[in-house]
């Protein structure tokens, strides 16, 4: 078996910890996250509350576990949405390279790039009000041109290759060629980009929740935990530090995994070994 890079192991381990925490939270958390226990409010980390408690006396470890659920769900669905829309668009643009459809898709892409995810979220929230779903839509819309561009770029270089010519000579149309010959050969690119967008999605969800455009109470979310911690930062710094570390470690894990996957999957790197 091939030796896998260390970054991949570390990254996968970190990501797995948080995925596991999110899964376990469906069945069990150390304390309930919806009750208020004023008696035990603002406690520093201790044996009873590993990560301490917040201003309502809620157990921060439990909130982190449930919050992981929100973060991962939002990011996964937003990446799925970006892929589901962006990949076909990118394949279509590449199959039509130089044509009108390509031009329209790429101009549309440029236009969406002018709307950062936050701005899309602001627009959507202004119309429909804030919610986790709207955060997903905003991040998903933002992901779409990213995947379209990566797909098109990868596909364009493949369309110049002779095996595509051979498939055309074998009477295969652009749609079939895109699915049979292009997609399998850009899967690596998409997997790597997917992990990058996944980690960006977690950061974006945190930011949107922090400014109140994301998940609404009582759904626990890392971004909102930080927003609530802000006013208490001088008396209970652990309230701010712990959710932040959760974000950093998850994103770091995903990025390391993405880097590791690129090393394993990129044929250029692989050939050099």
């Amino acid at each position, binding site marked *: 078996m091939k030796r896998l890079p260390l970054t991949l192991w570390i990254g996968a381990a970190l990501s797995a910890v948080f995925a596991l925490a999110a899964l376990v939270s469906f069945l069990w958390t150390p304390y309930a996250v919806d009750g208020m226990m004023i008696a035990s409010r603002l406690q520093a980390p201790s044996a009873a509350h590993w990560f301490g408690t917040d201003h309502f006396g809620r157990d921060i470890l439990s909130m982190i576990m449930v919050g992981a659920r929100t973060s991962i769900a939002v990011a996964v669905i937003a990446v799925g949405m970006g892929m589901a829309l962006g990949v076909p668009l990118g394949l279509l643009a590449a199959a039509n390279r130089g044509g009108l459809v390509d031009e329209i898709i790429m101009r549309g892409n440029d236009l969406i790039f002018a*709307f950062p995810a936050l701005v899309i979220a602001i627009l959507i929230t202004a119309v429909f009000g804030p919610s986790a779903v709207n955060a997903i839509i905003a991040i998903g819309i933002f992901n779409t041109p990213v995947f379209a561009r990566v797909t098109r770029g990868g596909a364009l270089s493949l369309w110049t290759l002779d095996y595509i010519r051979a498939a055309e000579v074998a009477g295969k149309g652009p749609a079939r060629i895109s699915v049979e010959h292009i997609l399998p050969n850009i899967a690596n690119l998409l997997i790597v980009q997917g992990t990058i967008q996944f980690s960006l999605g977690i950061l974006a969800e945190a930011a949107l929740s922090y400014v109140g455009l994301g998940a609404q109470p009582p759904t626990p979310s890392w971004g909102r935990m930080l927003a609530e911690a802000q006013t208490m*930062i001088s008396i209970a710094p652990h309230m701010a530090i712990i959710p932040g570390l959760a974000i950093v470690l998850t994103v770091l894990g995903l990025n390391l995994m993405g880097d590791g996957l690129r090393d394993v999957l990129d044929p250029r790197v692989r050939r050099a070994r």
Partner: protein
Amino acid sequence: MLRYALSRLLSLSLSLVVASLVIFFVIEVIPGDPASYMLGMNARPETVAALSRELGLDQPIFTRYLAWVGGMLTGDFGTSYTYRVPVGDLIAARLGVSLPLTVYALLLTIVIAFPVGLIAAATRGSALDAGIMGGTQLGIAVPNFWFAMLLVLFFAITLQWFSAGGFPGWDRGFWINIKALTLPAVALALPQASILARVMRSAVIETLGQDYIRTARAKGLTSRQAVVGHALRNALIPVLTIIGLQFSFLLAGAIIIENVFFLPGLGRLIFQAITQRDLIVVESVVMLLVFAVIMVTFLVDLAYAAVDPRLRRRA
């Protein structure tokens, strides 16, 4: 060169028109009657009708769009419903905070990332390179607003070198405001600098593998001379693309980070406007943000042409 600039200008104008259409229709058309929406469920019908007239909502949609765009072109952004003052004035005051903050953060990003990326590329494979790559990996993972809170905790609350927030205003002098913007700018810049340093490193390494570097070495250039004389300018092409994208991230980041430092910028304005359903303000601020991003894309396109002679000929 002029033709290239003109063609980019044309496509920029087109983007602006489409963007304005999108913003206008999303905000004014989808939610139904904006007047009743802005006033809430319990508003009396007369009040709604009055607001409708005031906003010109009894006009056909296309006329309203033209009026909105025409107004913006002449600097008239309409009147805020909640503040009862021209939106243009509101935005102008807030822009004086957000724009300097973004530019400050962008400068910091570049000043940090260029040397760090170059050093990593020059020493690739070494312990120093590994350290830089590890550090930037961490930097990318840090949410800027959380980093901002840590900066406040450490530099403002513990060390008390900076104030925890607030903005004195430009009439109070230059440096005092720069000082007030320093912690926010650092918080914004660090994650972006991590990204840019990595891009810089891989762009330089990529160009170092090119044939023309070997040619330069065969001419007798040392590897350092080959990097400075030939690799750098070519590596700048992908780096410029990223800097352009980073501007929009920094602008969005500035809007978020204003919350941490209680800065009276566009972010505070727009979030208040959303809670108060002041759609005219939301619409105008969003348009302004999009305008800024498109303008920067245009500047980046011009910078490409300055760096790469192959683009100058192309229309």
